[in-house]
């Protein structure tokens, strides 16, 4: 399996006809990439993709019944520059904040899917992302649908201060309730997933699955380098590193992600259905 280098510069899927691989530098035709799940045909590097593409890849017919799309962030601290950053991200992504969730199906199994958008203020979790995740979890519990969360994030959103921090406890506490109900939760941390999201719902899946080469960790690499004063080992904090150290279940190429998830759900979901009450 190829172990791609860290992406350089902006690596959110660019627009245009030609893409340059962040890992090997190969020039790739857009159509080729699209039909290859945004995986470099030469080196296997997985481009970062937005929620629409994950929904397309994961759900039956790429269809989602999106909920709470209008939930809008506030600026409770009147934090410097935050208003402007929000507007910029809203214009860029066409979303109010960095999370999409709703009902869909996977191989005919009804699911709740939530997907974070790394392109929205660094995929950070503020009140809106935290609240939508909490609602997704509650809905999964109420409707007894398996829950899947694609997590990509720089961590808790600094600009909402302690409100953001508390979203970690909010989402994790809801997962505590879900856990009592035999409703499966599959966490899918993808590149990059760090900070407060890794230290909450992204690491609490009954099953945790990631993609090749994804950066997954708690502390930022520069912070750790600053702390230990030395270079980090090769492949540190990649999905493969996490799997080796036992913190996630499997690293699955994106083209196999949907099939893998359906295979797991097809075993767990009948149990969910069979349980009428807890």
């Amino acid at each position: 399996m190829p172990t791609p280098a860290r992406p350089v510069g902006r690596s959110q899927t660019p627009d245009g006809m030609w893409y340059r691989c962040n890992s090997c530098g190969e020039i790739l035709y857009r159509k080729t990439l699209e039909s290859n799940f945004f995986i470099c045909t030469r080196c296997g590097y997985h481009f970062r993709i937005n929620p629409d593409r994950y929904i397309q890849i994961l759900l039956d017919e790429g269809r989602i019944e999106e909920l709470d799309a209008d939930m809008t962030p506030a600026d409770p601290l009147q934090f410097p520059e935050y208003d402007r950053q929000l507007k910029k991200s809203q214009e860029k992504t066409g979303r109010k904040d960095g999370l999409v969730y709703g009902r869909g199906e996977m191989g005919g199994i009804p699911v709740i899917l939530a997907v974070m958008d790394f392109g929205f203020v660094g995929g950070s979790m503020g009140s809106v992302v935290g609240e939508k995740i909490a609602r997704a979890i509650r809905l999964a519990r109420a409707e007894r649908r398996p829950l899947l969360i694609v997590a990509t994030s720089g961590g808790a959103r600094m600009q909402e201060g302690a409100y953001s921090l508390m979203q970690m406890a909010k989402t994790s506490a809801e997962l505590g309730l879900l856990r009592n109900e035999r409703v499966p939760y599959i966490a899918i941390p993808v590149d990059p997933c760090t900070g407060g999201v890794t230290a909450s719902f992204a690491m609490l899946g009954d099953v945790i699955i990631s993609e090749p080469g994804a950066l997954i960790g708690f502390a930022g690499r520069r912070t750790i380098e600053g702390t230990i004063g030395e270079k980090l080992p090769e492949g540190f904090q990649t999905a493969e590193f996490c799997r080796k150290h036992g913190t996630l279940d499997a690293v699955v190429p994106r083209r196999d992600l949907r099939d893998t998830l359906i295979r797991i759900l097809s075993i767990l979901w009948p149990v969910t259905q069979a349980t009428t009450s807890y």
Partner: protein
Amino acid sequence: MAEGWLDFEQPLADLVTRLDELTAIGAKDEVKRVQEQIEKQKEKIYADLTPWQRVLLARHPRRPYPLDYIERFVTDFTELHGDRGFADDPALVAGLGRIEGIGFAVVGHQKGRDTKEKLRRNFGMPHPEGYRKALRVMELAARFGLPILTLVDTPGAYPGVGAEERGQGEAIARNLRDMAMLEVPIVAVVTGEGGSGGALAIAVGNRVLMQENAVYSVITPEGCASILWHDGSRGEESAKAMRMTARELREFGIVDDVVPEPLGGAHQDWDEAAHLLKDAVLANYRALSGQTGSDLVAGRVARFAAIGVYS
């Protein structure tokens, strides 16, 4: 600068030095006059502290740490060590004891006092095994129906290679989830630095309190400033922007109660600080009495579910 004083406390430090000199030569009238000046100066300095000054007080090298409080108001205390899987983490202490005769589990971050102790305690920055020990002891308490007191004082969870290898993110996440599900009363108090996820990992309480000069934030002011302005030295500005003081967080409903400290900060009078803390802990514990285990879980989940601002 005199030892143990912060820059902004310097006028007070000078007066205290002068008082010592006057006392030594037995100048009674002068002593009385300087004592009055000291009280006035204290009120002046501490009446209206800036957020950054609170950060400095929260990090004060003489500020009492959990074991100092435990020594003062927890009786029959036995420290329990280890996560049963990897190691014992001295950055986080846990144990069983009594407060006013009531059995409690007590968990807290522990910074060191001198250089050797600071290194041994890793400056109060736990590794995953610290969080796993905390959860082990809290789950023990829950099985025996004992209430839990947590004392929060950490710059943050330790960012290091070993911590990442052993799943720092997972350890914190699991604490957040499983602490929320414990069917006993939990009172959490931020006593110093409430540094991000590493602090929250033992702060999922039914009641969350902050000492008057404690701070609680999603990132350190220095970290915030270095992201925001690429200048880690502008912590004074970011401390203000992040609204990390007890009073502000009480207004936001993120903390339930502010625990008073002796004038000038907990480090001025450890016994008095401990006394005030104990009273607040017991009052908040008693406010939870009569609730069943499932009430306590539902209340705790609802408490955190209510936090967030959006439209």
